[in-house]
């Protein structure tokens, strides 16, 4: 309970004598933990990406040996589909947004010395590592990795005989239980920090939208993940000790699994997109040198999306045999989400309107996010219509949709955030030109890969099938499958400039100035990288985070901690070290 001792008062005096292990391995500093999450998740992102390539290879060239991998058999293919989804959702996108940027940004941007519970924060990271190790280990156990899809629908997942996988599926469940623990500790920390530890003057409606996104996300995760935990524990017992929660033979209900899973799963989707929306809002305002258009409605839209997220889970189950009347109500609540989403897109456009756009690399990615999220949002309307969903449910149309939202959406926002906050994280800048090349290549090959999937879906191409040529009616679509596969490989290779740029800049990048992007956030008032404890003197906040091009001052930005009299004497920034 004495964990706060180190954070209650800024103790720069003795943070330097922490040993290497205390500082970088069992770190309690939120910034170091954020970086730990970053490096861990980049590995998982790579694993998930390689799995995607293997899936694409099999779909483009069914049954042919993949160079360096060999022939992919159907069981392994199912494992790939399952683990690609699992790694990308639980071990890449979610921890990148929530773990990395949640940890790194929340205290810095609200003017707090650290998280409310630094040691819980450390435990959160190490539980995540344990979870990741268990999940990775499940790839190599006897019987192979889980093969019931990342949605682990019972009874397929509940009885080992149905998939031929037992230990792999059990490790999957155990790993997600650990993951849930990690997520819970993170959520408790973020919520307490945001509520209790804001700097003086940092009212809720002066918080940057990125913090709003992360805060609301933490609330969603806090309340959604336990439902998943309860459900998968029941699933584990069905697998191992003979309970019958989801097995009709023993009186259980397979659809109960789907209800519980999607009651978690749909809010989970918003966990993956709300922080991204917040981050993009920050970066677009910065790149446009203009306040965010309609800040309050942006906040309300985040809250509305989060709330609606709880009452739409049934739209994943339109074809599962639910009561048709219930289907109608779920369609209406689902479509209602289009309204706050539309508000967000239009407000981003409004932010750029009459701006003075500065196309730094983060801005490019943010603009890319807006254009691709628009596609993902619009294609969602097809699925929301329960009658159209009868046809496109479980086809490549939905694969296209989720990838437009999670790759074109979340991952683009993650790249934007990485380029944007890299200087603050490491004290060096990433190379802008290579960043632009990375963006141009990714944007191009991204669309070449995923846009045609809409057409596959319209052709009736089912998702998660090992060999599309097994169906006669899908054979004419095979050239398109090949095209997508080639594009996917190019998309993968388009990430090479990023990897090189990232590691090269880490050691040899241009030294970062204090406020690289002439931004208003509190994080730009501390040295890059910021010391343990962040602020030498607790900052006082005088205004919202988006006072760009304010008529009050000559420059086109006005940091949150500059007193209104215009006295630009900010002592703290130079003291740090």
């Amino acid at each position, binding site marked *: 309970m004495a964990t706060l001792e180190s954070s209650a008062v800024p103790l720069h005096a003795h943070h330097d004598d922490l040993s290497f292990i205390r500082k970088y391995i069992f770190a309690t500093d939120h910034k170091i933990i954020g970086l730990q999450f970053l490096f861990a998740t980049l590995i998982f992102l790579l694993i998930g990406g390689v799995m995607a390539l293997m899936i694409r290879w099999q779909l483009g060239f069914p049954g042919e040996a993949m160079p360096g991998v060999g022939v992919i058999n159907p069981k392994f293919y199912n494992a790939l*589909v399952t683990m690609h989804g699992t790694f990308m959702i639980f071990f890449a996108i979610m921890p990148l947004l929530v773990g990395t940027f949640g940890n790194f940004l929340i205290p810095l941007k609200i003017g707090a010395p650290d998280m409310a519970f630094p040691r819980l924060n450390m435990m959160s990271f190490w539980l995540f590592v344990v979870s990741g190790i268990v999940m990775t280990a499940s790839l190599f156990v006897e019987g192979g990795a889980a093969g019931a899809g990342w949605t682990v629908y019972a009874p397929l997942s509940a009885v080992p005989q149905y998939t031929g996988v037992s230990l792999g599926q059990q490790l999957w469940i155990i790993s997600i239980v650990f993951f849930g623990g990690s997520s819970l500790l993170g959520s408790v920390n973020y919520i307490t920090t945001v509520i209790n530890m804001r700097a003086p003057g940092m009212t809720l409606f002066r918080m940057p939208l990125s913090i709003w996104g992360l805060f609301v996300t933490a609330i969603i995760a806090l309340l959604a993940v336990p439902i998943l935990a309860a459900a998968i524990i029941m699933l584990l017992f069905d697998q191992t000790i003979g309970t019958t929660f989801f097995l009709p033979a023993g009186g259980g209900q397979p659809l109960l699994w789907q209800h519980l899973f999607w009651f978690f799963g749909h809010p989970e989707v918003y966990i993956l997109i709300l922080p991204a929306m917040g981050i993009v809002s920050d970066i677009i305002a910065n790149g446009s040198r203009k306040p965010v258009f*309609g800040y309050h*409605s942006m906040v309300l839209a985040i809250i509305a999306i989060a709330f609606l997220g709880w009452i739409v889970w049934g739209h994943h189950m339109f074809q599962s045999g639910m009561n048709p009347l219930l289907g109608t109500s779920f369609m209406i609540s689902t479509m209602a989400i289009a309204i706050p989403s539309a508000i967000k897109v239009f407000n981003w456009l*409004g932010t*750029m309107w009459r701006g003075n756009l500065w196309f730094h690399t983060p801005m490019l990615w943010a*603009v890319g996010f807006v254009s691709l999220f628009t596609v993902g949002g*619009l294609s969602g309307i097809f699925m929301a219509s*329960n009658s159209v969903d009868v046809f496109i449910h479980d086809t490549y149309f939905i694969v296209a949709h989720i990838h437009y939202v999670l790759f074109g959406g979340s991952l683009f926002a993650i790249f934007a955030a990485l380029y944007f906050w890299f200087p603050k994280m490491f004290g060096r800048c990433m190379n802008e030109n290579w960043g632009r090349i990375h963006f141009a290549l990714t944007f191009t090959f991204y669309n070449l890969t995923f846009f045609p999937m809409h*057409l596959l879906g*319209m052709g009736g191409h089912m998702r998660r099938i090992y060999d599309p040529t097994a169906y006669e009616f899908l054979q004419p679509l095979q050239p398109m499958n090949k095209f997508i596969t080639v594009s996917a490989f190019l998309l993968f290779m388009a990430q090479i400039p990023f990897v090189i740029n990232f590691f090269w800049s880490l050691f040899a990048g241009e030294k970062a100035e204090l406020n690289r992007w002439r931004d208003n956030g509190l994080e730009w008032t501390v040295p890059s990288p910021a010391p343990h404890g962040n602020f030498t003197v607790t900052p006082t906040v005088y205004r919202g985070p988006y006072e760009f091009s304010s008529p009050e001052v000559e420059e086109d930005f006005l940091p949150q901690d500059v007193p209104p009299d215009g006295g630009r004497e900010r002592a703290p920034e130079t003291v740090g070290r």
Partner: protein
Amino acid sequence: MGWLPGAASTYAADLDRIFYVILAVTGLVFIGVEATLIYFLWKYRGREGRKAAYIEGSNKAEIIWTVTPAVFIVGLAVASQSVWSKIKSPANFPTDAIEYRVEARQYAWGITYAGADGVLGTEDDFTRFNEMHVPVGQPVSFELTSADVIHSFFVPAFRIKQDAVPGLIMRVWFEATEVGEFALACAELCGVAHFNMGGKVIVHPQDEFERWVAEQS
């Protein structure tokens, strides 16, 4: 357009119409948003010495783009609802349908026919795997269930998809409008050979169908 597979059931055209309406509207929004985006990127590209306009928002504009999608969505929901209830609502099932029973299992579709007497559950019932013979121009309906895991009965040409859940009995109906062979697929991941769980729906002219049924018993 031609991207959707040929429609061969009575409600396929209704469903396609909604699809194309959504495609048209979302397509317009898509073009509108992306064109505006590109125009803004070009028009407001940064220049030295210029300062962006200091605008915090506009209630009027925001109300407009809140209400417009809302209206569109209400219309869409109403349109979808009628087709949805036509396909799925038990109250709207045709009463003059030929009855079948379909049981999915790893990895086959077992289709039970009523036989010559036209009544299920009698001795002359017979079961064929992966081939569903139906007459053209007459509604057919069936009880769909599964013996093991969840499968999904999917006939792209008929625009019908329904999960088969073990322990539950789902009601499905369709009426084929064209004679021919149509692919029947499993749309829900159901195990290792999920991809290989295809079948056929063979639509016969009425007299040919009767002859086929007679031959089987």
